[in-house]
């Protein structure tokens, strides 16, 4: 049963396994006895920045055939510390150094002799054994992420329901209008239902719900709560901020210096993505768009999610740097969002409500030394804490000018 199910669901997996097995066993017979581990692939990643195996010259020379050209003991010494060999006057080392514009190869003291020999073997095989092992290892690590995805809590569900409701206002409204007209029609023209109180109740309920919809829609005019636009690249904050634990300000690095939190330039993406070229969810397709944008100098046209009207002034630096607010206090749990959604309505009431209850870091900030009256009040004991309201958080011209 189990085998049958396995085969019918994914026949390629089993075939692939056989291919890898045959490949592995054939290689094992032709190689020296000590085993090669997935670690080699990891160690070789350092080399990969400057070298290829059969892919041409990068910073350093192509490594294909290097194992036949030099003997193993010399290669081990060179990989561990090339500069020491050059300083010692080794003619082969100096020749290599001069051939490559005198760019020194950084020493690798963290690798012991066994590990370096592993790498040499890896180069000899064009980097193939370890590659298959690492692929198998990655499949195993996937499971805890999948478990995490399945976890949902009531709070999240409630928020989702609210968001769904907000998106179906029109349908609710039309249903209510139709109900009102049907009951009116029956009341005046057809008279099928004889008890008139039924008509009255239906009309009253429909009017209430319809009125509520009109009220909610009217107040949300000009606001964009639950706006969740599709972006040009399938970029997930859940992967980058949640799973990879990269700080928000690594990419949005002007949040504490400028009015705008900032959209990172493509260069910042490349800090990691010049190495990481394949994602677990989208493969190479989405990451290729970054490289495309970088190579052609064409900016990526992200869609702005959180929009404020132009008659409001909002400054990120003030809130992040001086107010010491966390990003998620206004933007919600972005680290759990694949696609960013605006969770707060960004209404004026929402701003003012927060200004009324938030305490100012009054003692530690030298700027507030000028508020002498407030300091006097605190010293007298008439005021225990200073809220944003006390320093003008409710004044019109603070945000509207």
């Amino acid at each position: 049963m189990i085998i049958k199910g396995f085969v019918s669901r994914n026949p390629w997996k089993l075939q692939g396994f056989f291919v890898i097995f045959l490949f592995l066993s054939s290689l094992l017979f032709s190689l020296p006895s000590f085993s090669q581990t997935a670690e080699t692939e990891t160690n070789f990643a350092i080399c990969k920045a400057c070298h290829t195996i059969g892919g041409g010259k990068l910073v350093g020379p192509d490594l294909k055939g290097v194992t036949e050209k030099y003997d193993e003991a010399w290669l081990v010494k060179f990989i561990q510390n090339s500069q020491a060999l050059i300083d010692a006057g080794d003619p082969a080392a100096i020749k290599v150094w001069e051939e490559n514009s005198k760019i020194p190869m950084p020493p690798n003291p963290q690798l012991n002799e066994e590990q370096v020999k592993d790498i040499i073997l890896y180069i000899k095989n064009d980097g193939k054994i370890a590659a298959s092992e690492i692929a198998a290892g990655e499949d195993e690590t996937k499971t805890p992420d999948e478990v995490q995805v399945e976890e949902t809590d009531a709070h999240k569900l409630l928020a989702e329901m609210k968001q769904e409701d907000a998106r179906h206002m029109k349908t609710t409204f039309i249903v209510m209008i139709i109900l009102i007209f049907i009951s009116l029609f029956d009341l005046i023209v057809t008279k099928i239902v004889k008890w008139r109180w039924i008509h009255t109740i239906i009309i009253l309920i429909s009017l209430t719900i319809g009125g509520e919809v009109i009220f909610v829609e009217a107040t949300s005019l000009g606001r964009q709560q639950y706006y969740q636009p599709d972006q040009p690249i399938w970029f997930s904050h859940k992967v980058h901020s949640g799973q990879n634990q990269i700080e928000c300000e690594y990419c949005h690095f002007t949040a504490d210096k400028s009015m705008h939190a900032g959209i990172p330039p493509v260069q910042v993406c490349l800090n990691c993505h010049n190495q990481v070229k394949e994602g677990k969810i989208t493969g190479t397709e989405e990451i290729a768009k970054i490289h495309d944008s970088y190579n052609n100098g064409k900016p990526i046209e992200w869609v702005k999610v959180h929009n404020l009207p132009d008659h409001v002034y909002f400054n990120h630096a003030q809130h992040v740097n001086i107010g010491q607010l966390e990003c998620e206090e206004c933007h919600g749990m972005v680290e759990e969002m694949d696609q960013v959604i605006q969770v707060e309505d960004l209404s004026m009431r929402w701003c003012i409500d927060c200004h009324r209850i938030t305490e100012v870091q009054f003692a530690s900030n030298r700027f507030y030394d000028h508020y002498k009256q407030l300091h006097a009040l605190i010293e007298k004991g008439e005021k225990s804490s200073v809220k944003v309201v006390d320093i003008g958080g409710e004044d019109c011209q603070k945000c509207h000018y």
Partner: protein
Amino acid sequence: MRYIRLFILILIPLIIMACNRGKNNPGYDYLGSHDMYYTKFYKAYAPNPILKDSMTNQLPVEGTVARGKMPFPYQGSTLPERAVNQSKASKEWMNPVTVSDEVIAAGKWHYQMFCSTCHGVAGKGDGYLYTSKLFLAKPTSLVESYVQGKPDGEIYYVITYGSISGLMGPHGSQILPADRWNIIYYVRELAKK
């Protein structure tokens, strides 16, 4: 018959006015661009029909020196050039910041924001991106003699333009010059622990 006509006459405008919003629809606004809601200036990051490359955010003209900023004259476009410039910077480029508790604290904040994901909180090259196998190359340990033996100017160069190997990208756009010096002081402090 009269009732049905009335029914349709009222219903149709209501259907048009009511809003079923998809997630891509930002909604409606009162008066919109006729009010002060959306004014006509070009926003940062928005496209701009006037300028040649149709971007509002423009790069400064080459050779511009911002007020209060010190130009860093060691940029190189090719790798050998960069290798030469890096060794030049290590000898010539001196640290203008004097160390204090505030400098260390600022350095710590910036280190944890920009460096610790790869180099680890303690600087041992064991950041989360490496230990979770998301980034395959092992980041350099910052507390061992290889980095600690380098002069401040060279570390500054690597933070600004990235490492020669290309494994570490340039962080010059993200970290202000003063903060780079602060980070260097903090890394020196880490090595003492």
